[in-house]
């Protein structure tokens, strides 16, 4: 049942121009950043040779591209998550799903999975950009994989939060604005906490992503992401169930 709903989500998503436009624009921005980094690398390449233990291609080109990808996806997420529940409510199609013999958990997980498959296609496109570097050299596969894993996890966090906020309203625009606000807030927490080693630092999404970006997979970051995703998915399910009780 979860897969049926995920399939339906993907079908409706790709039936609209939104998905294609987003994919194209994101790829354009990321390719631009990627080429910029590549240019910079070629300029400083001669100086790099003189340093003992110089940073490699992956560190100079791929890691920054993935860092930008996280921010780009942060901006794109609200546009995708607003459709999930809020638009179904607005189009009166939520009744269709609730009347079917499936649980709220199936609905929420199906929608989450559908969105994650879309995000995977974005991540694959970014990874392909990185892999294209193999044409002219070698890659640090470990660092690339850690970046991919990090991006996947942070996307899951965006999706879970967006899905929950989408459950709160019947207005897609409000869901999008709310999600964007919340995600930006979680980013700004990062900036505010940058100079002090305060506890706020632990709440920032992108801060936790940074260590993946450097190639460090820390169990603390993994736990943070897992808890974040789980919390918002459970909240979303509870919210939908509560609505059936309260009306």
């Amino acid at each position: 049942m979860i897969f049926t709903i995920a399939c339906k989500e993907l079908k409706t998503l790709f039936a609209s121009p939104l998905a294609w436009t987003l994919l194209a624009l994101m790829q354009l921005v990321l390719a631009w950043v990627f080429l910029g980094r590549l240019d910079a690398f070629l300029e400083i390449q001669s100086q790099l040779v003189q340093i003992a233990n110089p940073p490699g291609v992956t560190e100079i080109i791929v890691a920054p591209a993935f860092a930008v990808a996280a921010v780009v996806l942060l901006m794109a997420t609200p546009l995708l998550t607003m459709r999930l529940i809020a638009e179904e409510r607005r189009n009166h199609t939520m009744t269709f799903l609730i009347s079917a013999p499936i649980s709220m958990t199936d609905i929420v997980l199906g929608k989450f999975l559908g969105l994650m498959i879309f995000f995977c296609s974005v991540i694959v496109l970014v990874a392909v950009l990185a892999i294209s570097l193999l044409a002219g050299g070698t890659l640090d596969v470990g660092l690339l994989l850690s970046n991919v894993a990090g991006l996947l996890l942070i996307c899951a966090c965006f999706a879970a939060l967006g899905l929950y906020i989408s459950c709160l309203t019947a207005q897609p625009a409000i869901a999008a604005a709310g999600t964007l606000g919340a995600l930006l807030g979680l980013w700004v927490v990062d900036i505010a906490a940058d100079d002090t080693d305060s506890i706020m630092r632990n709440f920032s999404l992108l801060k936790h992503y940074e260590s993946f970006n450097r190639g460090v997979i820390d169990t603390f970051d993994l736990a943070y992401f897992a808890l974040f995703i789980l919390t918002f998915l459970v909240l979303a399910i509870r919210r939908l169930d509560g609505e059936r009780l309260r009306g």
Partner: protein
Amino acid sequence: MNEQITSATISACGLCRNFGMIAAVREINLELKRGEVLGFLGPNGAGKTTTMRMLTGNLAPSAGSVEICGIDLLDRPRDAKARIGYLPETPPLYRELTVDEYLRLAARLHRVGNANLRAALDEAKQRCGLNDAGRQLIGSLSKGYQQRVGIAQAIIHNPDVVILDEPTVGLDPNQMREIRTLIRELGAERSVILSTHILPEVESVCDRVQIMHQGRMVFNDSIIGLKQKQISLEEVFAQLTLNKESSGDIQSP
């Protein structure tokens, strides 16, 4: 076998629903046998839609219970919901899907196996006169066709109970007649609950009629019974729902 045919497919007992301080539905009792079509009448705001949402598991009742073919809707919602087909007031259609895609989705969500999917799809389309519309986008269909798609998704999994909320609103007279014929056909082997404002429709299609007013069931009789007593439905309706003081007092067996 005979007993099974006449046994109740849907029975609601003491159904109540409060929204805050307001009681939208109070103490509704409802029982329907296989092969029976129930006309569900009432002025706007009487609580018809709320009752239907409770019967289909879209809204939890504040008190009371619902059983579908002997399965409690609150205890085993999955099994119970699989036996209900529901067309809400606004047909829940995805405009960006084609009719086939949408009906296939409806069938899968209602646990129709892959082996039976094609047959179920063809039968639902044939019943609702959608044979030529399979590849069209739902958004491009006319209101009448959209309504048919809505009915098709409610019957595709061969449910025991079909609940239709104002299925003929906005249709032209020909389409109305077709839909009524369809409802009659459905009623031959299943239970159908039909909510409507059109009294002649009830008289022509339904076996039994229940009238709701201010959240209470104020009238419950068979159409044949009404005809024998030579009372017109319109008189009953006006008498029961215009006179606010008398609400809740009249209940014929």
